[in-house]
């Protein structure tokens, strides 16, 4: 808000200062918000924290009628579905990034595919859930009948598949972005040495873009961990430790969404405790992610240069 009243030199100085203050204030606000969320969760979860302590992480029982609560099944469910989804999504997202970033950089096909990926990222998760219920569930059920396991149709595998589809656009569009940023000089140098396209991709493009690709994958993991609606519809909501990838299970986000509306007293506090755990897990994943990206980008710059 430069009003023009100030004289030029000191005015610039002052507006510079104001700008800095606003920036610092906004930065501080984010940190405060994070702390406030953490404090609220901790405070409201306190009755459950007092009652179950650290055993909450190892408790396998979730029983509202006897008020015994343990979060292990949900912790396991969240981590299992997210990482399985990540493993399923990686080959596809890398393939799409290379395809759009290296082979079809421009033109109608590229634009069409790119917007298709973006549309995929924008579809609300309840629609993924419905699609999963009407298409993926019968398909997995068919597979389960063929394999001779209990034909639930829903469970770890079904949710991982839907999560994989949901997170591919995220890692793919970031991957494409960083692949297009690989300097042309580097690639041309490699071509001039007689490298094939495959060799250029394997030796130049991927190493150079590695940190960006991994950052995209980690961002996708963050989304998978917190995803609620689609998973609730397809995981089977069984509050027990899964015994195989076909068994129904439950995730942290899903149990909160399911039970919070009707919960009172210790049950509600325990659900908030689950939210606290989810908050911490997301934070740990993010910290690990930042660390990995830093480490890899240092290595990559050393390798390429």
């Amino acid at each position: 808000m430069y009003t023009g009243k100030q004289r030029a030199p000191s005015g610039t100085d002052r507006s510079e200062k104001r700008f800095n203050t606003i920036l610092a204030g906004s930065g501080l606000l984010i940190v405060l918000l994070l702390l406030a969320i953490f404090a609220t969760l901790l405070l409201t979860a306190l009755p459950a924290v007092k009652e179950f302590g650290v055993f909450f992480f190892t408790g396998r029982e979730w029983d509202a009628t006897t008020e015994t609560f343990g979060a292990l099944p949900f912790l396991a469910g969240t981590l299992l579905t997210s990482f399985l989804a990540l493993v399923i999504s990686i080959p596809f997202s890398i393939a799409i990034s290379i395809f759009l970033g290296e082979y079809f950089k421009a033109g109608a096909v590229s634009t069409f595919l790119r917007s298709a990926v973006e549309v995929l990222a924008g579809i609300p998760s309840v629609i993924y859930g419905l699609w999963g219920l009407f298409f993926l569930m019968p398909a997995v059920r068919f597979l389960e009948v063929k394999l001779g396991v209990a034909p639930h149709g829903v469970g770890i595998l079904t949710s991982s598949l839907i999560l994989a589809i949901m997170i591919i656009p995220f890692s793919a569009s970031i991957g494409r972005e960083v692949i297009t940023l690989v300097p042309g000089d580097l690639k041309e140098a490699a071509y001039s040495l007689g490298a094939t396209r495959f060799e250029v991709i394997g030796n130049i493009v991927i190493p150079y873009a590695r940190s960006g690709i991994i950052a995209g994958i980690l961002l996708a993991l963050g989304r998978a961990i917190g995803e609620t609606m689609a998973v609730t519809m397809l995981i089977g909501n069984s509050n027990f430790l899964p015994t195989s990838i076909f068994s129904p299970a439950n995730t942290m986000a899903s149990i909160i969404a399911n039970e919070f509306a009707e919960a009172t007293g210790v049950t509600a506090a325990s659900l908030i405790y689950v939210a606290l755990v989810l908050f911490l897990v997301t934070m740990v994943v993010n910290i690990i992610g930042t660390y990995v990206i830093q480490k890899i980008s240092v290595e990559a710059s050393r390798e390429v240069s």
Partner: protein
Amino acid sequence: MSGIFSKALSLMAVVLALVCFATDAPALDMELLGAGATFPQPLYSKMFDAYNQQYKVKINYQGIGSGGGINQLIRKTVDFGGTDAFMAAKELQAAGAPVLHIPTCLGAVVVTYNLPGNPKLNFTPDAVAGIFLGKITKWNDPKIASANPGVKLPDLPVSAVHRADGSGTTYIFSEYLTKVSREWKEKIGTGKSLNWPASQIGQKGNPGVAGYVKQTPGAVGYVELLYAIQNRMPYGNIKNRAGRFIEPTLKSVSAAANVKIPDDTNVSLTDTEAAAGYPISGFTWLIFYKEQNYGGKAKDRAEALAKLLLWMVGDGQRYVEPLEYAPLSKEAAAKANKLVRSMTYNGTPLMK
């Protein structure tokens, strides 16, 4: 803090004040607030709309679930709550002052399934408990077959599905099973959300359960009668205490309430002795404080609430049946009327 920042802040304060003022103005009109059970929400919407047209009192009811309704009432953020389960002793204690319950209509829970041809099935209480305990695993199990002579049951695995979200539906269903099955009582018990047998599927809401049942041959779940009727889902007859297989209808559900109703209307309508009654039925209640002078509530607001409640268990009952809910019996309506008339403001009765 530098100038621009404080300027921005004061601007924000002005905007905030304007917003507050703007939202304050319509609150001068009477608007009663309610929240709670989702099951009677379509009925309440209809009733409140009709009441508003006739008496010019706005009522805002949010379907956030029975537990939410109880919480909001205890926190005194609403004038009344809605619940499918009578408040537990603990919750009544947390309320701090006496809370009254009045029934507004009846609901029922039905067992729905997906079998080839969807024949009408009869279920004994044993069969229902066995299915949801995970003990009956095939549809041609003698426990199901013996109650259904003439129906050829397939050799399909039984895939039972329950409500994963806490719900009054689960409460009524489990309360019924606790009464009729000793094993259920010991292993699972009664509640809005339960510790279900391992590897049994749960789905969110009536639509979730219904969707799973429709998609899975051999699936069996429980949903509200109203929901099953509206979605044309098949559902079974249940054997009641009198030994008759009863089809769930508005009539048989209302009939379940033909028992003695206590003065506080705290009565379970599952497995009642009524010979023509469907055994998995229950009231849905509205809850409110007996003494209305709390939290700075004006007397005319309390009076408006009392009038609305009287209308709902009186004149308003004519909206119940067209929306396929089961209406209150005369006795239940009379008890509810008496309860509303016991509401006080500063200790003096609100209604004469």
